[in-house]
């Protein structure tokens, strides 16, 4: 690998592709090929209609064998398109696949201009750069990486559950980490799911139970990932398992402790503040796991040292309540990680003109979900904030914080459908009530979704096309007294309307988790400006990320409904299962290495590395790159003041030659100074 290349002895084959007419229409391909034939080191130069075709690849193979080529340049499309194709062709011809370089004269040239002269000249520059670079290429070996068959799934919502069960059912071990005391996520809070109106809990809870009981799943709830080290196939994960103060070995989940606990606090998470829960609690009766958790902040024993009712009444032997329990840090190895961390709802208080928090009868969608849920705080009756009066008219405001220049520009995708579902549920529970849906555009793409919209039109919901300006209680006429007035421009009749109603439901945007930036840094992958995680390719690789071994599923990637989240969870699981089945993957050998004899031990590179892949040997006072951790970015190579770090396949020699080559027509006579 370290054998020195002698540029004088290299024999380069140059192949300029027409790509049908994609390149040849603008670039004079024959001219480039003829011109290249006379360049130093070039043994043969050809142009061909389609280099990527099997005949084109045969050309390369034959020339390597017959003309003894040592290096190959193909001037055609983007390396992201066909670099692999041609590397394999070189390999078939008997060359190391890295003895190849590509000049991108299609995406970067012929497709960007009609100017034939300029395009041909640019094609020459790019081809020449590739030729001058390739003579400095050195044979490299791909690095085999073993894949640990265990997987970490972060997030126990429906996307995470879907991914976890797919993998576990395929016989692979999964660690599922969930921050809340139970899995289930947002879906557990919902009542009905659109458009079929089947009960959310009825379809979700059996899946939750499967996760809880599966022999291949280690379920860690009330836990958070604290540290992730390593790379594809070999991650080491540290998880903080927060103290539950309940011994999971002994607890039977009988619930007597919850019953006996004398203190209540507002349940701000599961019941979104609509009702109270005990201080020792289970978020909801079907929670998985079934063990309760003590809310330390509010527990009288923890605050004042008295009470212990839960411990006193606990019937298990030995007692399950352990006040002295402490957080545990668990460490385990996994080969792949699937992130399914879900979403937050937009804080509707950020739009004060909608009155949430100021006007009692303005509700959020999640509050309404809990209210219509048969196991929710009102056992399914739709009531006003006083928890008894039934509203006679309800307005549902779409696009709260989404499709809005001031907040989120994107469409939250699910709100139209659940707003329609709300309208249906109001009709169902309060047949005499008037329902108004104030929407900007009705977006119902999906199987059976448009049909659901049509059904609502028949149920005589009032649809007002316009963005709501304000919700107010300032009456102008007697009919508005004591009501909430929704001020909205009805754009279909071109008139401002004031709609007096008893209840307003806001449908807020789905937004990225408040801590998604930190999560993305923890797992060393990207998130976009909105905070959603970035997929490797928006169409062709929607569940992989730019970081090998890290996959994403569900609403952490962008607003998504239940079926899409389930599909993504399963897709991510399939990707992981594929890698597990392979057992080993080959990694690009683009890695840095430090010449130990010449390193001055300045340690500048140590802090440059985003992967902590460079260690410093105190005894010898030199730094060394741990190849397995290095991802090949080359930041350390650029930073080394002694120039003793080599970035394989992007060496200084290669890049300097490429710079010289790309400027072939403008280079001054050899500069002396």
């Amino acid at each position, binding site marked *: 690998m370290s054998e020195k290349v002698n540029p004088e002895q290299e024999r380069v084959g140059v192949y300029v592709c027409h790509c049908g007419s994609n390149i040849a229409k603008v670039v004079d391909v024959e001219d480039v090929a003829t011109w290249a034939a006379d360049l130093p080191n070039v043994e043969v130069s050809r142009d061909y209609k389609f280099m990527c075709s099997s005949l084109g690849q045969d050309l390369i193979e034959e020339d390597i064998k017959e003309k003894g080529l040592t290096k190959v340049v193909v001037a055609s499309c983007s390396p*992201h398109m066909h670099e692999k194709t041609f590397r394999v062709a070189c390999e078939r011809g008997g060359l190391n696949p890295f003895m190849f370089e590509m000049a991108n004269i299609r995406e970067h040239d012929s497709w960007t201009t009609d100017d034939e002269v300029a395009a041909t000249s640019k094609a020459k520059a790019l081809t020449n750069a590739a030729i001058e670079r390739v003579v400095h290429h050195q044979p490299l070996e791909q690095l085999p990486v073993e894949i640990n068959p265990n997987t970490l799934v972060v997030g126990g919502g429906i996307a995470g559950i879907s991914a976890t069960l797919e993998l576990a059912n395929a016989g692979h071990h999964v660690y599922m980490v969930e921050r809340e005391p139970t899995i289930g996520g947002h879906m557990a809070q919902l009542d009905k799911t659109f458009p079929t109106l089947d009960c959310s809990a009825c379809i979700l809870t059996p899946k939750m139970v499967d996760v809880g009981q599966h022999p291949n799943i280690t379920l860690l709830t009330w836990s958070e990932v604290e540290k992730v080290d390593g790379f594809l196939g070999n991650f080491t994960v540290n998880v903080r398992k927060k103290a539950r103060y309940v011994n999971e070995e002994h607890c039977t989940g009988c619930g007597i402790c919850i019953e006996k606990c004398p203190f209540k606090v507002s349940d701000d998470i599961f019941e979104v503040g609509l009702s109270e829960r005990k201080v020792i609690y289970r978020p909801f009766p079907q929670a998985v796991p079934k063990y309760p958790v003590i809310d330390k902040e509010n527990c009288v024993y923890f605050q004042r040292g008295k009470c212990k009712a839960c411990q006193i009444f606990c019937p298990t032997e030995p007692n399950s309540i352990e006040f002295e329990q402490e957080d545990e840090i668990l460490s385990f190895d996994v080969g792949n990680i699937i992130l399914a961390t879900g979403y937050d709802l937009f804080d509707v208080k950020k739009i004060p003109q909608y009155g949430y928090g100021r006007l009692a009868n303005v509700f959020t969608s999640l509050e309404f979900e809990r209210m219509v849920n048969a196991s929710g705080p009102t056992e399914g009756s739709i009531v006003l904030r006083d928890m008894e009066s039934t509203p006679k008219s309800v307005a549902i405001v779409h696009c709260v914080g989404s499709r809005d220049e001031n907040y989120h520009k994107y469409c939250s995708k699910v709100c139209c459908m659940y707003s329609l579902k709300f309208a249906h549920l109001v009709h169902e529970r309060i047949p005499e009530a008037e329902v108004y849906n104030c929407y900007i555009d009705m977006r119902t793409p999906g199987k059976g979704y448009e049909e659901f919209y049509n059904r609502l039109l028949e149920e005589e919901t009032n649809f007002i096309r316009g963005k709501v300006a304000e919700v107010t209680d300032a009456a102008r006429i007697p009919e508005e007294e004591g009501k909430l007035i929704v001020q909205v421009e009805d754009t279909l009749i071109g008139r401002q309307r004031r709609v007096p109603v008893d209840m307003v439901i806001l449908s807020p945007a789905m937004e990225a988790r408040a801590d998604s930036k930190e999560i993305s840094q923890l797992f060393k992958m990207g998130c976009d400006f909105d905070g959603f995680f970035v997929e490797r390719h928006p169409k062709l690789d929607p569940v992989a990320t730019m970081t090998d071994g890290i996959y994403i599923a569900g609403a952490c990637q962008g607003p998504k409904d239940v079926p899409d989240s389930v599909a993504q969870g399963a897709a991510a699981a399939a990707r992981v299962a594929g890698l597990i089945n392979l057992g080993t993957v080959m990694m690009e050998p683009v890695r840095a290495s430090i010449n130990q004899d010449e390193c001055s031990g300045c340690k500048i590179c140590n802090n440059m590395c985003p992967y902590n892949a460079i260690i410093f040997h105190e005894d010898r006072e030199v730094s060394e790159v741990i190849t397995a951790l290095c991802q090949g970015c080359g930041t350390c190579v650029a930073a080394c003041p002694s120039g003793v770090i080599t970035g394989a396949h992007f060496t200084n020699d290669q890049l300097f030659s490429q710079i010289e080559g790309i400027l072939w027509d403008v280079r001054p006579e050899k500069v002396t100074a």
Partner: protein
Amino acid sequence: MTEQFEPVIVGFLCNWCSYRAADLAGTARIHYAPNMRPIRVMCSGRVDPQFVLKALREGADGVLIAGCHPGECHYVNGNIKALRRFMLLKAMLRQMGVEEDRVQLLWASASEGIILARKVDQMTEEIRALGPLNWSEKVIGGNGHKVAVAEPVAEEV
């Protein structure tokens, strides 16, 4: 009519965002100035300031460094390191008498082909207005390195 000056710009594009942005610009058939000649690096953090100086010395009239947006770097924060080096390099170029606009930095994600294309157009115009760099005269000749070596007396004051 005199012939218009066509500046030559070397573009260092990171493999994950900007190179793909340029690919996308092509795929979307966005037309832009053919003056930028791209070189692929894995990360904008790999762009050694020497590469920029080398390009300018070898006849380029400008250099564009393009990477992922801050926070979106494939290698966590290589682009921030590129930014740091870029600031220092600019200060150095100023001292050498090279106009600041000749070396520019751009964040372009893989979906921002249009942003990359417009930047190349804009930069081409700016450098066209500045005229050729003529490194050997501007930096090495005149009050540059060569003179200082030839006349060490110039060090006084």
